[in-house]
């Protein structure tokens, strides 16, 4: 390149960059936190113990379903999503969506909310298969759907795509991709329930699966822009982080242990989730057969977990409670059958204070929903 022309090009680029950097108005971490944390209602509503369970819709067209997710709307309705197709990872897998109105208490027929073809078209990028979805209704009423997309390879080649709805799931925006890794943007997956900050930013727990396995937390602005990414754990066998807020900065994170030996649910307490310091992970006393767990704050007394407390297999699904997040006690068995039955991938949320909603995979053929209240938990045998 001729020297004068090169200097002129560089000078122009440099001047514009300086001007743009000076007027840069991007999000400042100081502005983002704290977490929108409200201590759950301590007192259980004055109702009778209640436990109900039902299958979510019909799955005639989708022999294999998995990875259910729920979100609770302000009007009391519930939205659910999961992926379904001929088998996990098949090209015909789509993200299905159903609604449970607060008055009818019945699940609507499932509809496709995201397909591989539609996502390919909207991203202008080839998508080979779809995976785990996550639904989340933020405080402004926008419903977010994050889901895994894979362009090549297995689940290690995953990236995250999202769309949102401003009318409680009646219509959805086009698909947008989150770029979360500098290495071809591969190997970021979702499973855990997001949190919201007072600024409206969403904290989305994700995990990395390519070469090394670790938990990460994405900060997404209210308009869907990825603002930051922080690594939660340096341990390479902890995946599917489930982040539970303890106060406006501190969180306790629970992990599925991925590996072959000493399988227990792992946990770590992070004093400031906006500046994680790679706190060491410790094993809880709950066995984990390399299966997903779901944990929420139960009340001021502790935590509530849905898990498969087995050394191997996923034929038992249980509810456990803990005061400190380390020592757990199983209080109910939601499913208990013989192997090779599978009741897995639980996703637990709290609706109204003292009311809990759970969705899980039932033998990979159906999605099962369960509702229970605090009084039912208190009456544990």
């Amino acid at each position, binding site marked *: 390149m001729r020297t004068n022309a090169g200097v002129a090009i560089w000078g122009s680029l440099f001047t514009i960059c300086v001007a743009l*950097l000076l007027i840069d108005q991007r999000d400042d971490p100081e502005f983002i936190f704290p977490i929108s944390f409200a201590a759950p209602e301590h007192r259980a509503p004055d109702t009778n113990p209640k436990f109900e369970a039902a299958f979510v819709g019909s799955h005639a067209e989708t022999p294999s379903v998995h990875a259910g997710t729920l979100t609770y709307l302000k009007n009391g309705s519930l939205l659910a999503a999961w992926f379904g197709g001929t088998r996990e990872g098949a090209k015909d897998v789509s993200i299905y969506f159903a609604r449970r109105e607060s008055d009818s208490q019945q699940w609507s027929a499932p509809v496709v909310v995201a397909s591989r073809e539609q996502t390919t078209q909207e991203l202008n990028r080839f998508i080979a298969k779809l995976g785990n979805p996550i639904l989340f209704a933020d405080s402004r009423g926008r419903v977010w759907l994050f889901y895994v997309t894979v362009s090549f390879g297995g689940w290690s080649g995953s990236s995250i795509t999202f769309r949102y709805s401003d009318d409680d799931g009646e219509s959805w925006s086009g698909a947008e991709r989150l*770029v979360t890794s500098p290495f071809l943007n591969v190997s970021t997956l979702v499973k855990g329930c997001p949190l919201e900050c007072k600024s409206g930013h969403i904290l989305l727990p994700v995990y990395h699966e390519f070469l090394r396995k670790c938990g990460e937390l994405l900060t997404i602005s209210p308009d869907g822009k990825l603002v930051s990414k922080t690594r939660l754990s340096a341990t390479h066998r902890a995946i599917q982080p489930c982040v539970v807020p303890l106060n406006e900065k501190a969180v306790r994170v629970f992990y599925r242990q991925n590996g072959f030996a000493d399988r227990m649910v792992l946990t770590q307490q992070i004093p400031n989730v906006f500046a994680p310091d790679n706190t060491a992970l410790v094993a809880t006393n709950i066995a984990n057969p390399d299966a997903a767990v779901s944990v929420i704050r139960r009340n001021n007394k502790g935590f509530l977990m849905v898990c498969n407390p087995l050394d191997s297999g996923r034929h038992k699904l249980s509810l456990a409670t803990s005061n400190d997040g380390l020592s757990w006690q199983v209080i109910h068995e939601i499913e208990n059958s013989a192997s090779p039955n599978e009741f897995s991938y639980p996703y637990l949320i709290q609706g109204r204070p003292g009311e809990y909603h759970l969705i899980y995979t039932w033998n990979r053929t159906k999605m099962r929903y369960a509702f229970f209240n605090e009084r039912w938990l208190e009456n544990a045998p």
Partner: protein
Amino acid sequence: MSSAFWIWSHLSFVLLAANFLLLMQRGRRGPRARWASLSVLAFLGLLPVGHTDVSGFMLAHTGTLCVPILILMLRELLAAEGLVLSQPPQIQRNTNLFWLACGVLLYPAALGFVAHDTYYFGYNSSMGWCVLGLSCVAMLCRHQVLGICLAAAVLAHQLGLQESPNLWDYLIDPWLWIAAASHLIWMRFKPQPQQIRSNSVTNGLPAMAILPQHR
């Protein structure tokens, strides 16, 4: 998908394919044939494949290409037309070492081999100032192409031309890192100067080191 991303994917496809053709032809075709090839490639990139087009299909497998690799590929096409001059080997080596160092700093940490993730810094606007500072240093040291690449990456990041909000994604991608490493290895073990036809048009990509001069 915004029009900027669409343009980015097509530009990536055309430049990548054109450089590949340039490498394959090795100067056997004249300028007219090269420009005709470029036009055909621009058209090919738009052909539908499944529910996307050829460039979208390629992008799904290569990832979004970074700014410097696009500039270097464009520069190579211009060099083939004799519109730009080559860089001295010493500057090529320094430039490649810079990209190599960037990759070593970024990829092991981002892939989880190091506890602290250096990719995190790419979300912070202060990294933009650092890269601009490096760009100044590169210009002062007469590494013009590197200086322009760095400034252009910051500019593209500020304008949000890619999907990623992270400056690292504008600055480097695995293909640039592999290219820089390969070129360094090739420079280390290349035959004596009289044994090759010319390496004077090279500017940093490995394939380009064996391209003939078209002036």
